[in-house]
């Protein structure tokens, strides 16, 4: 592990930001707390996707499957079998990790060209939603309703509202920290080398299959855990929300707009775009339906045109210019 990781852990900026975020529920109305909680869900999801999509350059469209397992399956385990949701969280994460490994292995074993990973992950996501909708155990197409959140921590309840916000804040912070940790460890170097040039990576000793699987497993497990927390917050496990391709597309979009492969990029993208989308919908959704999508789309397209590598690199360039030319870029 590089020293930069421990510096991050000891950084007052990090802890300061966390503390400020943590007092938000006392300052903001419950509407905005809800929006921030959603934003944190997507910070966590986009950051976990970043490990495989950003760092390793493997555009996975299978993440709705992992989110779906984490949410629908752990909800079903609780409702149908009475299994504690903490245990459900672990079981779902393990299943997601195994599926992630299988997907990465299949992609490696049957290299079908440039788009093969995208297509294979998409196929798995599709299979996932077919299984969910057809299998009554998982609630079928009508979904599952969790018992009311009474704040019983041992039953994976956080009391809704503020409690859910803090839970999501912790989870988002963990996902971002995992990103920082990976980028400062050998795994981060291996993944970036694989993304940039697989053949050259192999020629300097990188075991491509092993690290592609590692990235996918970590990413899938994190996404699954976030899925479990998310469904607890929503209370209603809606397959059309949780295991739909839309959620994956959103994650990919946030990560791309924020800065692919960077520790804080996906978090930045989610923190800006989720509130923007929600507020636009709240303000315009009833008066001019559709307009909020249009404005949202324009914002996203402009960002990508202005700074194809995302907002984080743009902000860094602006910051460097403001600080003067002597400041070198960060890795």
């Amino acid at each position: 592990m590089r020293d930069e990781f421990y510096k991050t852990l000891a950084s007052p900026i990090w802890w300061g930001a966390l503390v400020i975020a943590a007092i938000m529920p006392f300052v903001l109305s419950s509407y905005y707390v809800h929006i921030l909680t959603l934003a944190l869900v997507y910070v966590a999801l986009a950051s976990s996707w970043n490990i495989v999509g950003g760092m390793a350059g493997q555009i996975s469209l299978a993440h709705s499957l992992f989110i779906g397992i984490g949410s629908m399956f752990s909800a079903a385990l609780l409702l149908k079998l009475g299994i504690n949701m903490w245990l459900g969280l672990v079981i779902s994460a393990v299943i997601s990790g195994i599926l992630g490994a299988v997907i990465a292995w299949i992609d490696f074993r049957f290299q079908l060209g440039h788009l093969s990973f995208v297509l294979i992950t998409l196929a798995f996501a599709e299979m996932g939603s077919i299984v969910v909708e057809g299998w009554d155990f998982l609630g079928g197409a009508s979904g599952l309703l969790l018992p009311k959140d009474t704040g019983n921590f041992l039953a994976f309840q956080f009391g809704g509202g503020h409690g859910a916000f803090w839970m999501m804040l912790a989870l988002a912070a963990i996902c971002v920290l995992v990103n920082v940790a990976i980028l400062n460890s050998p795994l981060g170097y291996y993944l970036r080398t694989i993304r940039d040039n697989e053949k050259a990576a192999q020629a300097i000793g990188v075991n491509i299959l092993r690290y592609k699987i590692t990235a996918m497993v970590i990413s899938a497990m994190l996404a699954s855990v976030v899925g479990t927390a998310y469904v607890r917050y929503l209370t209603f496990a809606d397959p059309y929300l949780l295991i739909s391709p839309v959620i994956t597309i959103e994650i990919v979009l946030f990560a791309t707009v924020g800065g692919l492969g960077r520790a804080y990029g996906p978090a930045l993208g989610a923190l800006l775009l989720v509130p923007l989308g929600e507020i636009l919908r709240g303000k315009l959704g009833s008066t001019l339906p559709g307009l909020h999508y249009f404005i949202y789309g324009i914002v996203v397209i402009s960002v990508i045109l202005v700074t194809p590598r995302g907002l984080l690199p743009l902000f860094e360039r602006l910051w460097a210019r403001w600080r003067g030319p002597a400041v070198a870029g960060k890795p």
Partner: protein
Amino acid sequence: MAFLEVSNITRRFGGLVALNAVSFDVEKGEILGIIGPNGAGKTTLFGVISGFIPPSAGDVVYDGESIIGVSPDRLVRRGLMRSFQIVQSFADMTALDVVTTAALTRRPMREAIDYAAHALLRVGLGGKEHKTPATLSLQDKKLLELAKCIATDPRCILLDEVMAGLTMAETAAPIAIIEELNKQGVTIVMVEHVMPVIMRLAQRMVVINFGEKIAQGTPDEILKDQRVVDAYFGDHLDA
């Protein structure tokens, strides 16, 4: 038993026989030069030895064991390293990042970074650690290939035209590095078109033409070999 034994390697690409039953030995600690006209099969041969290209027939024994079917990254960890004739690019990594990844084959994170910085210094790329490989000059890209090799602590390296495109003055740095590595006991197999360089560095040479080995011997013997003169040097030796 030699350190590296190439026996009867054949490789076909469809109807084209890129390598036809090529055999030779490399002794531990020597510098073996491989020459041959463009398209002779030299890069394909390196691809086979380094595990990137499966041969159609034949065997390669490295350090006492057959390495056919062993993946390139495992060979690197066993000390068999190659450079690429076409310099490899990395879109989003600095020179230091790339060489650090190479150094991670044998070292933990922090040591690897120091070792990589040292390898870059050693090949003369000090001060260019934070450039991306794409922004380096051709000479520096070739030096970066060498730094990657050094950083993995190889026992045997296959160098594919690391001097091509360099001026005579620019070849001084890679030549010094290769000599130094060899003095430290690293076995070197090098493909090179720059004749004065390979004549000076190689202790033995192998000549390949149209996928077949047509001669082997010391540089002096090779220069006198009529088949080589006919097949390869042709007119410009007469001139």
